[in-house]
C-alpha cells in the first residue's frame, strides 16, 4: 500500500491552534488520575489543580493571540472571534472552579469526576466556539452537553436534581437529533460542511432556492434554539436550572450560553446575509417571543434559581436582537453582551449560593428578607448584579443592552428595539423584588447566617463585581476588542 503523505507542518499547526483545548483536556485527565491517588481529605487539591489548568489554558490562549490560525484542514480555526469566546468561556470556568472551593465542601461535590466533568465540558465549549466545520460544531456541542447532563444530575439522591437532568437530557438529545439532521441536509445540498465554503456558495445563489438546503438550515436553527433556550424551545431551562446544583446552574448560564452563541454567530454572520430576507423574519419573531415570554414568566417566580432561569431565557432574547441586526455592529454587541452576561450571572448565583443554606427550598425569595443591612457586603453585591441584569446604569448590563438595541435601530429594526426596551422595563420589577425584600422587609427571627466564603470564593465574587462595574464605566477597550473580533470573522 502506498503511504499517505503526511504534512507534518500542517499537523503541528493544527495542534498549536487547539493548544488551550489540549491544556483543558489534559488537566481533566490529570484530575481523574489524581482522584484515584489522593486520600479523601486531600480532595480539595483537585480543585486547585483544575483552577491551575484553566489558568494555564487562558495563558496559552493569550499566547496564541488574535492572529488567524487554521488547523486540521480548516475544521477548526483560532481567530479573533475564537479568542474572544475562548477567553470568555475560560474566565467563566475559572470563576466557577474558584467558587467550587466552597460549594464542594457544603454540598458534597468534592469529587474528582465533578471537576473533570466541568473541564471536559469546557473543552467542548472551546471546540464549539472555534469550529468552522458544522461537524466540529456538533462534536463540540455534544462534548459540552454530555458532561453537563451528568453535572445537572450530580446530586443523585435529590429528586429535583435527577428530574432536571432527565428532562434536560431527553430534550437535549432530541434537539441534537434535529441539529444533526440539519447538518446532513445541508451536506446533501451543498456537498460540504465547511461553514466558509457554504457561505461562499450562498453568495453566488446556487443554494439559495434549494428546499433541501433551506430545510437543513431551519433544522439547524431549531437545534441551536434548544441549546440557547429560545422560546418556544425553552421548556427544559427552568427545570434544569432549578434542579441542578447551583454552581452548575451558574456555569450553564454563563459558559454554555456563550459557546452556543459563538457557534450560532459564526453560522448566522457568515451564511445568513445571502438569505437575510427569509431568515431575519424568523429571528425577529424568535427574539420577540423569547424576550417577552422569558420576562413575563420570571415575574411569577418565588424561587431565585427559577427566576434567574427565566431571566436567562429573556437574556437569550436580548442577545438574539443583536443577531437579528447582524453585521459588524450587531456582532460586536452580541460578543460584548455574552461577556458581560457571564460575569453578572456568575456573580448573582455566587451570592445566592452563600445566602441559601440548602438546595431546594433555601432559594425562596423570602429567605433573603432582611439580609441587606445585616450583611452589607453580600446585600450590596447581589444588588449590584441584579441591577446590572436589569440594565440600569452605570453597570455593564446597561452598556451591553444599549449596544444591542442600538445595533437593531441602525439596521432598521426599530420595533424590535422598542420591544426590547419595554421588556427591560418589565424585568426591573422582578430583579428589584429581591433587593426590596433584602432592604425593606423585616428580618424574620432566626435569620439564616450566610456561609462563610473561602478566600477563592470571595475573590471570584469580587472579580465578577469589578468586571461588571469596569465594563459599565469604561467599556471602550472591550468593545473595541469585540469589534476587531467580528471584523476578523467577516474579512
Amino acid at each position, binding site marked *: *500500500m502506498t*503511504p*499517505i503523505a503526511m504534512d507534518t507542518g500542517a*499537523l503541528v499547526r493544527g495542534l498549536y491552534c487547539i493548544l488551550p483545548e489540549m491544556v483543558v483536556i489534559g488537566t481533566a485527565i490529570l484530575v481523574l*488520575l489524581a*482522584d*484515584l491517588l489522593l486520600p479523601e481529605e486531600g480532595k480539595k487539591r483537585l480543585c486547585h489543580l483544575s483552577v491551575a489548568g484553566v489558568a494555564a489554558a487562558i495563558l496559552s490562549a493569550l499566547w496564541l493571540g488574535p492572529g488567524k490560525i487554521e488547523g486540521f484542514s480548516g475544521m477548526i480555526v483560532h481567530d479573533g472571534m475564537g479568542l474572544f469566546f475562548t477567553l470568555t468561556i475560560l474566565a467563566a470556568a475559572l470563576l466557577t472552579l474558584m467558587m467550587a472551593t466552597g460549594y464542594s465542601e457544603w454540598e458534597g461535590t468534592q469529587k474528582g469526576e465533578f471537576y473533570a466533568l466541568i473541564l471536559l465540558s469546557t473543552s467542548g465549549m472551546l471546540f464549539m466556539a472555534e469550529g468552522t466545520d458544522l461537524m466540529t460544531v456538533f462534536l463540540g456541542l455534544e462534548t459540552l452537553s454530555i458532561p453537563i447532563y451528568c453535572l445537572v444530575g450530580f446530586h443523585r439522591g435529590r429528586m429535583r436534581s435527577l428530574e432536571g437532568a432527565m428532562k434536560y437530557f431527553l430534550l437535549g438529545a432530541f434537539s441534537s437529533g434535529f441539529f444533526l439532521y440539519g447538518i446532513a441536509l445541508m451536506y446533501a445540498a451543498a456537498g460540504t460542511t465547511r461553514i466558509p465554503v457554504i457561505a461562499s456558495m450562498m453568495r453566488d445563489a446556487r443554494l439559495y432556492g434549494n428546499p433541501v438546503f433551506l430545510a437543513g438550515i431551519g433544522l439547524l436553527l431549531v437545534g441551536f434554539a434548544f441549546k440557547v433556550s429560545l422560546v418556544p424551545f425553552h421548556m427544559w431551562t427552568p427545570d434544569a436550572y432549578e434542579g441542578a446544583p447551583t454552581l452548575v446552574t451558574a456555569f450553564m448560564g454563563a459558559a454554555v450560553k456563550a459557546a452556543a452563541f459563538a457557534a450560532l454567530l459564526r453560522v448566522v454572520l457568515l451564511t445568513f446575509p445571502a438569505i437575510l430576507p427569509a431568515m431575519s423574519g424568523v429571528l425577529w419573531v424568535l427574539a420577540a417571543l423569547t424576550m417577552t415570554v422569558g420576562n413575563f414568566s420570571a415575574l411569577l417566580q418565588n424561587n431565585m434559581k427559577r427566576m434567574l432561569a427565566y431571566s436567562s431565557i429573556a437574556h437569550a432574547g436580548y442577545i438574539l436582537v443583536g443577531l437579528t441586526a447582524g453585521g459588524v455592529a450587531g456582532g460586536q454587541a452580541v460578543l460584548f453582551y455574552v461577556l458581560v452576561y457571564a460575569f453578572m450571572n456568575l456573580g448573582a448565583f455566587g451570592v445566592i449560593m452563600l445566602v441559601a443554606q440548602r438546595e431546594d427550598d433555601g432559594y425562596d425569595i423570602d429567605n433573603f428578607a432582611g439580609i441587606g443591612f445585616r450583611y452589607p457586603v453580600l446585600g450590596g453585591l447581589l444588588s449590584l448584579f441584579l441591577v446590572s441584569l436589569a440594565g440600569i446604569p452605570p453597570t455593564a448590563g446597561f452598556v451591553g443592552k444599549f449596544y444591542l438595541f442600538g445595533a437593531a435601530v441602525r439596521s432598521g429594526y426599530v420595533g424590535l428595539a422598542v420591544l426590547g426596551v419595554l421588556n427591560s422595563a418589565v424585568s426591573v420589577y422582578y430583579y428589584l423584588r429581591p433587593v426590596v425584600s433584602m432592604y425593606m422587609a423585616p428580618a424574620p427571627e432566626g435569620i439564616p447566617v450566610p456561609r462563610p466564603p473561602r478566600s477563592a470564593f470571595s475573590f471570584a465574587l469580587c472579580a465578577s463585581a469589578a468586571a461588571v462595574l469596569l465594563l459599565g464605566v469604561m467599556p471602550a477597550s472591550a468593545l473595541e476588542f469585540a469589534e476587531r473580533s467580528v471584523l476578523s470573522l467577516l474579512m
Partner: protein
Amino acid sequence: MSGLLASLQFSSPYFPVIVLMAVAVGLSAGFVFLSQWVGPKRYDRTKYSEYECGVDPLTTSTVRISVKFFLVAILFLLFDLETTFLYPWAVLYRSLGLFGFVEMGVFVGILLVGLVYAWKKGALEWQ
C-alpha cells in the same frame, strides 16, 4: 424516486430483493389473517394462562435485573463502540505509518485512563 421505480423492472439488480420482500410480506400477512379467519375461537381460563400446557409459572416473568448488570452494560456499550475506530485504522495501518501509530496510541491511552478510573472506582467488581 425514479430509482425506486426503476428497481421494479425485471432487469434491475434489485428486482429479486423486491420480489423477496413482496413474497415475505404477503405470506406473513396472509398467515396472520388466514388463522384469524379459519381458526376456531374458544376462550376459557386455561387458554388465557401464560403457558397453555405445562407447569404453572412460579413467579412473574419480569425478573429484577441487578443494577450491576446495567453498569457493566453501559461500560461495554462505550468501550465496544470505540472499536469502530480501530477497524478503519487497522485497514489503513500500513499506509498511515508512524503518524497513525502515535495517533491511535493517544486515542487508546485516553480510553485506558477511563478503564483504569472505572476499575479503581470499583465499577467492575461483581459483588
